[in-house]
């Protein structure tokens, strides 16, 4: 009836989604990505642009504060949903959409509540209103006190022994195209990474096996697993990693194709139906000289250094930089194409998952995390993101450490 209400409701028919994945929820992430894509809802990478925060996985109590923080920094109409179980996502998204439409249409209540909240905050010493005046940083004021509850940047030496402003910025866990649960505590000077501390969200012990390693671990436990399903899982894992790296590099078109292929492989598409599409995509990446020129030389990891760090799998076999690792993934996918429908059982002593040997002293992703500081220090922020994506550690594996170790011993 009223134009304004109608427009507001229309605006929320396709809410923009910010998806956050918690450790152990890879399967839910894939489901959420596919479902959101099927609906054609926009996917965004910062809370400012988002309407709907989709949390994949069950948040531990430690996760609540930062998830609350993200939700609070999303402008109205905003909503958070938690996708904790697979299979319920479509309903949850439908409900969320309905709620968002309601929220957008009933504006008064939200506004009154928020005004009260803002008034609360500005009563406190050093509240937001106060901060607005000092935040402009006039050049005369060199006392590095706190402004709006946060200190100003202090200086520190850079590699050329210049004393420059340093920012301590934790990247992740809600960054897009980012390993679930990973937190990198960066020390930035400008956009140069001067220091890295690798951290991660708490990894609750989970009854679920790491999604990408599942077939091999199940076979090791004595379950009957076909070779085809293991190959499928490996191909999908590599396509997922390649899609992520290409998205970080900014080649959205091919990244989207990789992700679509990944979902088709997982949903059991036959070799004939995806073979052509897949080979075309691999050729496109292989032949792209701009891509090679753009990421060659980033995250150089020669085989001997990789082996010394305990890395196994594609990152070791690639014996080179981010571009080599990308091609390694894609070539393994292409080779795997032949075996997609192999019904023979997987040998129980085959323990080579997508990221490396699962029967080693530590899960393969542990080694990938351990070499991050060495590779990232001195890189620009953009390069650091590319290097992380080109190794693509899977933190789900960390929770599993004792199990696979015990199986081996």
């Amino acid at each position, binding site marked *: 009836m009223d134009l*304004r209400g109608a*427009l*507001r409701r229309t*605006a929320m028919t396709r809410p923009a989604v910010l998806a*956050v994945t918690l450790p152990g929820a890879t399967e839910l992430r894939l489901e959420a990505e596919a479902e959101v894509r099927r609906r054609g809802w926009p996917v965004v990478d*910062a*809370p*400012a642009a988002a309407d709907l925060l989709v949390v994949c996985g069950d948040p531990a109590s430690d996760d609540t504060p*930062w*998830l609350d*923080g*993200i939700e*609070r*920094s999303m*402008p*109205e*109409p905003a909503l958070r949903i938690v996708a904790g179980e697979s299979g319920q996502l479509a309903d949850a998204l439908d409900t969320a959409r309905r709620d968002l439409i309601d*929220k*957008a249409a009933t*504006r008064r209540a*939200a*506004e009154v509540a*928020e*005004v009260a909240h*803002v008034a609360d*905050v500005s009563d406190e010493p050093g509240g*937001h209103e106060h901060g607005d005046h000092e*935040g402009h*940083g006039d050049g005369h004021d060199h006392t590095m006190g706190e*402004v*709006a509850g*946060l*200190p*100003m*940047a*202090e200086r520190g030496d*850079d590699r050329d022994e*210049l004393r*420059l*402003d340093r*920012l*301590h*910025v*934790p*990247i*992740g*866990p*809600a*960054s897009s195209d*980012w390993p679930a649960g990973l*937190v990198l505590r960066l020390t930035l*000077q*400008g*956009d*140069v990474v001067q220091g890295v501390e690798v951290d991660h969200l708490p990894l609750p012990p989970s009854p679920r096996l790491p999604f990408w390693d599942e077939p091999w671990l199940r076979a090791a436990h004595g379950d009957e697993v076909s070779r085809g399903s293991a190959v499928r899982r490996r191909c999908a894992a590599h396509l997922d990693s390649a899609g992520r790296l290409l998205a970080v590099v900014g080649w959205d078109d091919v990244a989207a194709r990789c992700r679509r292929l990944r979902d088709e492989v997982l949903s059991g598409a036959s070799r004939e139906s995806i073979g052509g599409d897949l080979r075309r995509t691999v050729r496109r990446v292989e032949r792209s000289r701009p891509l090679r020129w753009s990421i060659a030389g980033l995250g150089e990891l020669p085989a001997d250094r990789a082996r010394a760090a305990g890395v196994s799998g594609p990152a070791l076999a690639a014996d080179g930089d981010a571009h080599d690792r990308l091609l390694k993934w894609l070539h393994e996918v292409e080779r795997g194409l032949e075996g997609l429908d192999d019904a023979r059982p997987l040998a129980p002593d085959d323990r080579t998952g997508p990221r490396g040997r699962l029967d080693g002293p530590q899960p393969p992703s542990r080694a990938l995390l351990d070499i991050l500081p060495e590779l990232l220090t001195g*890189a*620009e922020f953009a*390069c650091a993101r590319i290097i992380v994506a080109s190794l693509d550690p899977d933190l789900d594996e960390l929770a599993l450490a004792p199990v696979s170790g015990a199986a081996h011993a």
Partner: protein
Amino acid sequence: MDTWQPMLVLLGVIGAGLAALYGLGLWLAAARAPLDTGPFAGGLEPGEHAVSRFHVRWYPVTMIFLAFDMEMLFMYPWVKVVSEVGTPAVVEMFLFLGILFAAVAYAWREGALRWT
């Protein structure tokens, strides 16, 4: 004046259009009072305010750019008189450009155009 008057009018039109857009936004917004919030860097709080002296590693490029860009200004009036002045205009301009470019090539050899 005739040529610049439309620019002023145009500026006014854009200003009005933007004001209308912001007005429309206020009319439609789900809440009118701005949301005051912290910055986003991936979900966790940053250690400091971001406004700082930003370390860029391409300082040398800015210097070369300034030198070359200033020179570019001469080229605008120059294009109008090329055939009038004749060959000397072209020779002088491209000698000048050649010298400048020699400096750029030197800076390149010294690694000024790469910083990683």
